């Protein structure tokens, strides 16, 4: 009986194929998951606790209305926040403000904003805290609505040291990173 036929009949070829597959062909690729979400890229460079804008880049046309969220990043045990946002009144018109989600589960929450000043916008959000009432994590404080007045680019910046956060004991939380937003107007 020819050797090849004997090999087939003894199923050696099947076993041999299995062995070769096991040794030589089971190969896997290394993980390849680039963290390149355009929203996440600047967040990776920030050191928490931080404040930032989302989205951090906006492209609009003259006259368009857009919304931008004022965010805190990985804060711990915060009970009160004051954000001072600088913007150019010549380029952008402030329209309205909505409360965000950071204190959404808290009772007796106060949310105030002041846009009367020429060069900046103040946002206050806090609640009557006790030692058990506070918030943590990453969430928006407020959503601000603007309109683009001119076809000129501008930025939104958190002003230091007025932008601050406190704990339920009214102790300041050190903010380690401040984000900014770029508004591109066509």
């Amino acid at each position, binding site marked *: 009986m020819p050797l090849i036929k004997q090999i087939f009949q003894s199923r*050696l070829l099947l076993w041999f194929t299995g*062995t070769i597959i096991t040794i030589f062909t089971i190969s896997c690729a290394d993980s390849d998951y680039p963290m390149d*979400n355009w*929203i996440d890229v600047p967040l990776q460079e920030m050191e928490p606790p931080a404040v930032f804008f989302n989205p951090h880049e906006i492209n609009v046309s003259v006259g368009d209305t857009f919304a931008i969220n004022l965010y805190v990043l990985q804060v711990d045990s915060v009970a009160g926040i004051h954000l001072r946002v600088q913007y150019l009144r010549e380029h952008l018109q402030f329209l309205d403000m909505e409360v965000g989600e950071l204190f959404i589960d808290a009772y007796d929450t106060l949310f105030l904003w002041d846009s009367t000043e020429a060069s900046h916008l103040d946002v206050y959000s806090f609640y009557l805290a006790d030692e058990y009432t506070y918030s943590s994590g990453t969430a928006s404080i407020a959503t601000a609505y603007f309109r683009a007045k001119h076809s000129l680019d501008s930025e939104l910046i958190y002003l230091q040291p007025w932008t601050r956060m406190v704990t339920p004991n009214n102790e300041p939380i050190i903010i380690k990173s401040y984000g900014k937003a770029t508004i591109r107007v066509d």
Partner: protein
Amino acid sequence: MINMRSPKTIASAALLSLISAASLPDAPHFYLYDQSSPTIAVVDFHNQGISLAAGQTLTERFRLTLAMYTPYSVEASGIKNRFNILNKITRNYSTCTSIGCAVNVGKLLNVDRIVMGNISRESDQYTLSADLISVQMEEIIRSRSLEYIGEMDGIHDYVDTLVTRLFYDELNPNLYASRFLITSDGLTLRQSTFPQLESKIDLELKRNQVLWAMLYSAALPGAGQVYSKRVVIGRRIIGGWTTLGTLLAYNYYHYSTSKKEADRLYASYGPSLVPEDLIAYRPKIQKYGRRMDRANRNMRMIRRFSVIYWMVNMWHTWQVAPRKIEVEPTSILLTMDPAINEVGLSLSFALD
């Protein structure tokens, strides 16, 4: 009709072949074996279905045939010797069913080889089997078995056949000589002198056992060793290969489950515009990515080690695969030159 399997017939045929020529020397001078013959012992065969006395008688028959037709020096060929030696410790070594037991007996008796056998009976069907074990290597060199259907009286010839099968390569050369006939045309092979011997064993020897052992080992490391009757080491190699396969499968499982989770999370991460979700996804994706990389590194390492393991196994198989002749025989042939009407002997010696 002459029973060709009878030892008396074998010996008679050998003697007749030798004395038929005019100038042949005496028969005993034909034994040209090395004086330091290897020693061998035979433990009582394990019996199933026959009496203890019958089993011992058949074992004695086996020893006698072994002593007559092979170059071995048979030890423990009497019950007295056996008990004299084995009474030193309180264990029953009268029969053995395991290699360890047989090896222990071999060491006690200080022999090179030991035979362990089994005779079982079911109504009129007998199964005889014997294993030749190397005491030093502690493994089976070869095994033979045969079946016999008939009365108990006829089993002795089959015991003789079992001896000739198990020790084919070491048979007394007179038996080789008895397979030749001197005719007017010269030397011819006597037909069917040992039908049981030639029918299967010749076929086995024609098969390239080295090649088949290598093929088995290539397909499954360790299988070649088992094929070569190196059962202990073969099983260990198979066990090692199985362990490598299990480790590979374990790491591949972790790799695939981590990849599945990472793919699922990344599919949500890519298009998301919500920072809270992105912050939550990112560390999980990186965690699963690290698990994937660790499992992949392990698999690469196991694969490299498997290649080395496989190559070493192939080399080992080549080393232990059975070659055709284990004991290089010294052969004696009867020769005849019809032209000058003389008969003589042709001797060949193994040089190593």
